């Protein structure tokens, strides 16, 4: 959490630190460039950074990066909608029926720590080598955090709010929609954010592994053509896209979460 990072540094200190951070990156690239240009590192293993930066333009114009990005984003969005619907429904159901929660919550938690993505060959058999394998992989891998956070959110509703509902004599349905659900919403969104991150990681990973689809497949494609600079550039591009995605999610979460 960058938010947890030092608040004590002065503004000047903060600025210097940021400059040092960026400077170190630039210095690293510069040193790599020199080492590769002088032949200390073989350019057939690591292409010089200048070449990588140069091939950014090439992969963007020639490799249909935009449509690939849209495809991956669409897969993430579909998986995101599915985890939200099924995850929240599952969480609510488990909160409603305590017995079910007691029986299954540890299973869901265990699934969250299991290497679910390794089931991708199985999913390829079931769904075929198409977009649905990728989406379902993202869905299954990202479902547990949404369920767990939904339960946590509803169970964590403040007693006062629950009592307000009771004193208004709300029916269980009203109690849920007017009190519990709104109170749980920020926590549920934390779950959805985690889920979306898991979904993105798994979707790009599976795209790469099965050599199908959007951004993940681009990397595999370039690597198989032994287009080194292109491969490195594509990896940087995918990393950049995912980082921007996390930043956007973080912003959205801060915007949704009331100051408490």
């Amino acid at each position, binding site marked *: 959490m960058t938010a947890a990072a030092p608040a004590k540094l002065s503004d000047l200190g*903060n600025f210097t630190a940021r400059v040092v951070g960026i400077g170190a990156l630039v210095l690293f690239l510069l040193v790599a460039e020199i080492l590769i240009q002088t032949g200390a590192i073989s350019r057939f293993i690591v292409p010089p950074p200048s070449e990588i930066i140069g091939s950014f333009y090439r992969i963007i114009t020639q490799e249909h990066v935009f449509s690939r990005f849209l495809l991956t984003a669409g897969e993430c969005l579909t998986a995101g909608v599915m985890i939200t619907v099924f995850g929240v429904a599952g969480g609510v159901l488990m909160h409603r029926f305590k017995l079910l929660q007691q029986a299954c919550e540890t299973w869901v938690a265990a699934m969250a720590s299991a290497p679910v993505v390794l089931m991708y060959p199985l999913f390829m058999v079931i769904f075929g080598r198409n977009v649905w394998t990728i989406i379902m992989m993202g869905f299954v891998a990202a479902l547990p955090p949404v369920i767990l956070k939904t339960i946590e959110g509803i169970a964590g509703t403040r007693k006062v709010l629950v009592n307000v509902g009771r004193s208004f004599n709300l029916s269980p349905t009203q109690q849920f929609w007017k009190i519990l659900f709104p109170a749980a919403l920020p926590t549920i969104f934390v779950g959805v954010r985690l889920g979306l991150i898991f979904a993105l990681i798994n979707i790009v990973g599976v795209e790469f592994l099965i050599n199908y689809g959007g951004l993940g497949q681009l990397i595999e494609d370039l690597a198989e053509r032994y287009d080194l600079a292109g491969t490195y550039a594509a990896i940087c591009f995918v990393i950049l896209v*995912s980082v921007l995605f996390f930043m956007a999610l973080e912003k959205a979460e801060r915007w949704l979460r009331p100051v408490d």
Partner: protein
Amino acid sequence: MAETGRLTRAAAGPAISPVTLLRAAIILGALAVWELLSHSGWLYRDVVPSLLSILRALIALLTSPSYYFNLGVTAAEIATALAIGGLSGVAAGILLGANRFLSKAFESYIYYLGPTPKIIFFPVMIMWFGVGPESKVALGSLSCFFPVALSVAAGMRGIDKVLIRVGESFRAGPWQMVVKIYLPAMRHPIINGIRLGLGVALIGTLLAETKLSNKGIGFLIINAYSTFDMPRMYAMLIVLFVLAIGANALVGRLGGLDSIKRV
């Protein structure tokens, strides 16, 4: 005394709790539906093989020496990855946690690179380390480094200031501070980080094996896919999940229970 004894016995209720009963019902129900599906012919028979054939494949798997050889290869790769990624993660975490300037300068890189899909670095790892186990170890280490570093850095900042002052007042050197103060005080975040690291190292290593390798569990899984031996694939996934969840629980238990209670 006799009274209370009888009371507690009475309060213990039926021998099987409703939770256990429900669990058993869910498991049995799922197995029954599975078996029904496999015999109904609604889905391809090979996608949903009968439980008996999965059981047979499971037994065949667990009794074959070659499986244990491959398991050993993968376990060694994961252990090496955990050692390399974990140690460098702890070192980086201590540096970032101890120094506000370094943390401000570099921690956001680690924070944002952490949750990116590491498997896409695999072509680069093959280029650097070859197609053998080394590239799998490299990918596992890379995956493992980030959660450990972040967890340790956060744990470092959470250390009770009193402990640090005690160390300083004893004039402990930097190394002594790390060994005597920081590491013992951070046992919980470190174990937690290693648990997260173990999970991602396992995924990284095995995914790399499914992509390109000639030994290891990942290779066996993708091999079962290529030869369309579904019962074998199910059997391997079951064993793998049991092992992975067990390892995770074990690491959690090692560091979790007693250290939380420190006051």
